[in-house]
């Protein structure tokens, strides 16, 4: 650091030259020292600043070029599991998902488990104090206290101010219409996985992100009318259970399906198994005489009976030692129309035996009565069919005994007979305009027309008169069957059913009603047969749903002339 100042003397001690020889003299004054120190400081400052700048540039380069930008997720609910809505055929909401708050705790932060439990129970009294205390006293870092709180409950918990408690947003499946169409909709578990009904059938589609609502074939108005009439009927006829189906014959769409007793899917966990059972598609019944239109179709299809031919139903008939009896005995032979109108067991037995057991089984297979109903719902029971088909089987099956099927299965088979003979599998999904309908021919259109006409005759002149609805030209058939208990048919324990279809000129809708063990009532003359309960309910349902479904009432001109206008009559 020493420098030779300009005024220094030559170094006299060195070399040959004068300069070399001149001695070196260093003079350091105070000013020069300050200057040197200042220079050093400046240089150090520049170096430090440069290093800092370099660091800054490096960091800037790192941030700008190398580090990927973080996505923002500030307290979003993006991660909450979603599930698409379920709506009816007209877009009416049937099931939706709402965000609710679930209460959890971190037991590590609990000071006094007993005091915390008391505080929690004071605002959530439905919880079990022992369980809450046990959980709070555990060594875990996360425990659920209660899931899906109501907004009021959440506020009350929030006001407790306990630091160990926290909320987590969780979705909850909500069924705003309560019990309506509960068996069709089904329900989900707490984690929003479909476990029954449409929730289960369309689980994958409903769980997809941003999925569109699933549109069911159900018409909420028809569904309510059916459930309402069944409910009133069940009360009036003191039945143990009831079920019903409304089917679009042309498309196979199920417009309504009800089973009573029912349940509220919002509280599916507390519903009794008996209430959760969808009797329309899961309960097997020997449905009795509502099977007879199938035998009429069988006879027509096989050509075993000619037009105008009468069968000796007034005579005793015994098959394999079993006498075949009629509930409405007659003393004259009957033609096919009257056999159905008077619901003659002997008549249909004679027809079925003429056609033969093989032809009968073939037809039942074509009508889908040997398999479970192939629809979206998993709740669809397979029928109980005799393993060996003897003459007695042919006879009993001809009038609906010896074979157990679900109401939906028989409704589908009868709809086939009324749909020009085309079998269409039922569906709970709305049929789109222009969508192809898969069908297969089960019987000829001529046979179908024959069944349509004979079933109309049942309502105008037969056992189904109680179902008649003015202006809607109903077709129908009653069915009363004794229940098979421990291998014995019990006379007083009946299953009554009625199939109604309308309008007669072009059958479009089918209503199927079943009562399990209905009783006689005031005005039924001691009868508890289908004509006195199921037929009346079917008529009432048709009366309510026909205008809703856009079926015009046909009114005779004479009736029009006599009609009075105005609402006061």
């Amino acid at each position, binding site marked *: 650091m020493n420098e030779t100042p300009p005024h220094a003397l030559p170094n006299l001690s060195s070399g040959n030259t004068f300069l070399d020889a001149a001695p070196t003299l260093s003079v350091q004054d105070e000013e020069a020292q300050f200057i040197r120190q200042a220079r050093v400081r400046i240089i150090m400052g520049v170096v430090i600043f440069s290093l800092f700048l370099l660091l800054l*540039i490096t960091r*800037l*380069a790192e*941030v*700008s*070029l190398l580090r990927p*930008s973080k*996505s*923002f*997720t*500030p*307290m*979003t*609910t*993006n991660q909450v599991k979603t599930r698409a809505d379920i709506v009816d055929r007209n877009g*009416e*909401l*049937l099931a*939706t*998902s*709402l*965000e609710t708050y679930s209460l959890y705790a971190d037991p590590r932060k609990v000071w006094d488990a007993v005091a915390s439990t008391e505080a929690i129970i004071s605002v959530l009294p439905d919880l079990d104090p022992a369980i809450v205390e046990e959980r709070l006293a555990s060594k875990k870092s996360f425990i659920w206290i209660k899931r899906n709180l109501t907004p009021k409950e959440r506020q009350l918990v929030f006001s407790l101010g306990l630091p160990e408690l926290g909320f987590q947003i969780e979705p909850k499946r*909500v069924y*705003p*219409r*309560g*019990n*309506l169409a509960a068996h069709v909709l089904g329900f989900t578990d707490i984690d929003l996985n479909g476990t029954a009904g449409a929730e289960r059938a369309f689980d994958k589609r409903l769980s997809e992100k941003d999925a569109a609502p699933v549109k069911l074939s159900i018409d*909420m*108005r028809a569904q*309510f*009318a059916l459930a*309402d009439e069944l409910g009133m009927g069940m009360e009036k006829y003191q039945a143990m259970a009831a079920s019903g189906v409304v089917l679009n014959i042309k498309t196979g769409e199920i417009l309504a399906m009800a089973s009573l007793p029912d349940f509220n899917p919002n509280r599916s966990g507390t519903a009794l198994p008996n209430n959760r059972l969808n009797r329309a598609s899961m309960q097997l019944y020997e449905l009795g005489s509502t099977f007879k239109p199938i035998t009429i179709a069988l006879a027509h299809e096989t050509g075993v009976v000619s037009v105008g031919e009468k069968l000796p139903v007034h005579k005793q008939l015994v098959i394999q030692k079993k006498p075949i009896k009629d509930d409405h005995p007659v003393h004259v032979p009957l033609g096919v129309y009257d056999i159905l109108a008077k619901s003659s067991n002997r008549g249909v037995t004679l027809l079925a035996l003429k056609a033969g057991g093989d032809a009968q089984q073939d037809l039942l297979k074509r009508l889908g009565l040997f398999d479970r109903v192939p629809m979206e719902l998993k709740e669809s029971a397979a029928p109980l069919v005799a393993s060996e088909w003897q003459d007695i089987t042919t006879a009993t099956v001809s009038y609906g005994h010896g074979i157990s099927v679900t109401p939906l299965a028989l409704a589908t088979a009868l709809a086939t007979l009324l749909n020009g003979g085309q079998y269409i599998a039922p569906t709970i999904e709305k049929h789109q305009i222009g969508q192809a309908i898969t069908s297969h021919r089960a019987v000829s259109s001529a046979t179908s027309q024959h069944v349509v006409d004979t079933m109309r005759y049942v309502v105008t002149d037969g056992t189904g008169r109680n179902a008649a*609805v*003015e*202006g*809607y030209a109903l077709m129908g058939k009653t069915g009363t069957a004794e229940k098979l208990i421990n291998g014995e048919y019990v006379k007083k324990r009946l299953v009554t059913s009625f199939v109604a279809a309308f309008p007669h000129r072009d059958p479009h809708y089918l209503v199927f009603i079943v009562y399990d063990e209905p009783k006689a009532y005031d005005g039924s003359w001691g009868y508890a047969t289908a004509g006195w309960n199921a037929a009346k309910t079917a008529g009432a349902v048709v*009366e*309510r749903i*026909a*205008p809703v479904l856009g079926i*015009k*009432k046909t*009114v005779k*001109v004479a009736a*029009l*002339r006599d*009609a009075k*206008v105005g609402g006061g009559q």
Partner: protein
Amino acid sequence: MVVFVGLLVALYSIKAHTLAAKAKVATFEQALISERQAIQMLSAEIAHLESPERLRVLSSGQLNLQPTPASRTMTLAQAAQVIAQKPLSETTPKTGGVQ
């Protein structure tokens, strides 16, 4: 070097702006989700309020109403036919006061 630093600063600035915009988008998305949830909640409430069972109880309890039987209904065309077939004196409304 200066150009490089300048580019870095510009890039940083753009990135900072992008992040700010992203934060804003996230806020909007969050608001959108909240609004959708609110709509969902309102739809569920509407569905509950207009559920047929609830309306039936209200209409029968408060207004004494019941479903209209088929015998009391006809289409407009049928109504027009009825009116056309009635004698004029029956179909002309009596307004009163001027006779």
